[in-house]
């Protein structure tokens, strides 16, 4: 089922210039963002270079400066359809061993038992809001409010890939070894980012990245 949207959907959208060739679109719902993503991949504006997804925003980069007029025109002429249920997305199950180094401190900080933390963390169907920070790192929406915690005051210098953590209102999975300030609840062997698959040129992102923005993630307790 497709629903026709009228062309005024993006008229008057707030556009903030960012750098010489970039424009940020703000306050986008996931479905509006999806319409723009689809349109950028099928009928991009003149001089389009690439786009980057943020929490509720989208950066559109052009190949040359002073493209704001082109972008406005392109947005106001957008004749897209919103597809019900974002049907490009997939549901991915990620097995997790809940033996993370911060499980006990998260339990204390939230006033829950460790078993409750695990049950609450593994219950939701999470949605990948965006990828970023590192290749393949998913910011997951849907974390239960009881687990919303400030990031750690002193970040770890090295977090192993596969570490399953929470930070602020997001859940996430570290995709490469990196420093980081999230609370670590468990580990997974699920490969989020396979650098070796990126050898040569990559035509299909799915060869390299297990997830994409819009996908649903379910943690399975093992």
């Amino acid at each position: 089922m497709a629903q026709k949207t009228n062309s005024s959907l993006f008229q008057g959208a707030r556009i903030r210039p960012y750098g010489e060739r970039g424009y940020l679109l703000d306050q986008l719902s996931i479905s509006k963002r999806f319409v723009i993503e689809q349109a950028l991949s099928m009928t991009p504006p003149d001089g389009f270079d690439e786009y980057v997804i943020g929490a509720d925003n989208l950066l559109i980069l052009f190949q040359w400066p002073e493209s704001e007029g082109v972008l406005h025109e392109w947005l106001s002429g957008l004749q897209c359809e919103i597809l019900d249920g974002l049907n490009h997305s997939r549901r991915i199950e990620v097995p997790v061993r809940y033996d993370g180094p911060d499980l006990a401190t998260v339990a204390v900080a939230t006033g829950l038992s460790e078993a409750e933390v695990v049950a609450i963390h593994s219950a939701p169907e999470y949605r990948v809001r965006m990828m970023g920070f590192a290749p393949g790192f998913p910011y997951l929406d849907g974390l239960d409010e009881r687990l919303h915690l400030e990031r750690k005051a002193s970040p770890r210098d090295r977090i192993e890939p596969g570490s399953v953590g929470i930070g602020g209102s997001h859940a996430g999975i570290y995709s490469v070894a990196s420093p980081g300030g999230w609370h670590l609840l468990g580990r997974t062997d699920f490969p989020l980012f396979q650098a070796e698959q990126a050898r040569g040129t990559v035509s299909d992102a799915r060869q390299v990245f297990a997830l994409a923005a819009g996908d649903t993630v379910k943690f399975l307790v093992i």
Partner: protein
Amino acid sequence: MPVIEIISTGVGLSVQDYGRPGWRRFGVPPGGVMDRSSAAAANRLLGNRADAPVLEVLMQGAKLRVLEDTWIAIAGADLGCAIAPWTACAVSAGTILQFPMNRSGLWAYVAVPGGFDADRWFGSASVDSRNGLGRPLERGVQLSAVTSASSFKYERVGRRVLAAELQRDFSRPMEFELLPGPQFDLFSSQARADLVSSEWTVSPRSDRTGFRLEGPALNVPDSIRSEPVLPGSFQIPGSGLPIVTMVDGPTVGGYAKIAILREADLDWLAQCRPGTKIGFNLCS
């Protein structure tokens, strides 16, 4: 046929080209050479494409053995190599190229005819070791040139010294041009004034992901919802001291961005050694 063998990597040595843009939305940094204009100069001295893979030499210590007669061009930082920066020359097999000292700048670029022939990840030969992309160099690794000396058309190297007005002296004091960042208006007028009226010092805690600046702590607004981050952005974390995002830096972040360098100025900033004093002008 290999043309260069690594004897020592020194402080830092990697193959770089213009990076792998197009994958930021999956969290892959654009990467590539830290100073595009110098890498392009080294390539152009040999008639290569500006974005052909080069060796990027960070400060002193690297040592290379030339394995066959070839042409080599060097541009960027002056690291005391026998081949002066901004020039190209013929080099015979057996020559040892050393980069023994740090006279000016941080990154020197070594080009060979056609560029280095290196494996690519996401279409780029650039090494991003944190993310497992590209092939890190170590002692004993041999690198080939795309064009061998015997097939290289020497006459294409019309000018073997880069025009003087294009050469850069990175020890010169610099003022850089800034554009307002996406959160410019969230910063106090005091913070905005401090940014342009203060003298800043490049911190030793700087690398390919970001350059930190030391100076007066700026007033920090609340953190923002995670937003895409471009190289050259001045992110202001809780300390109030700017982190300038570089090409290997994260693709999204939650710190407010007071300003962003003009793209052309990022190359030069990347060449400023720790301790260098720099200033900024805001253009609108």
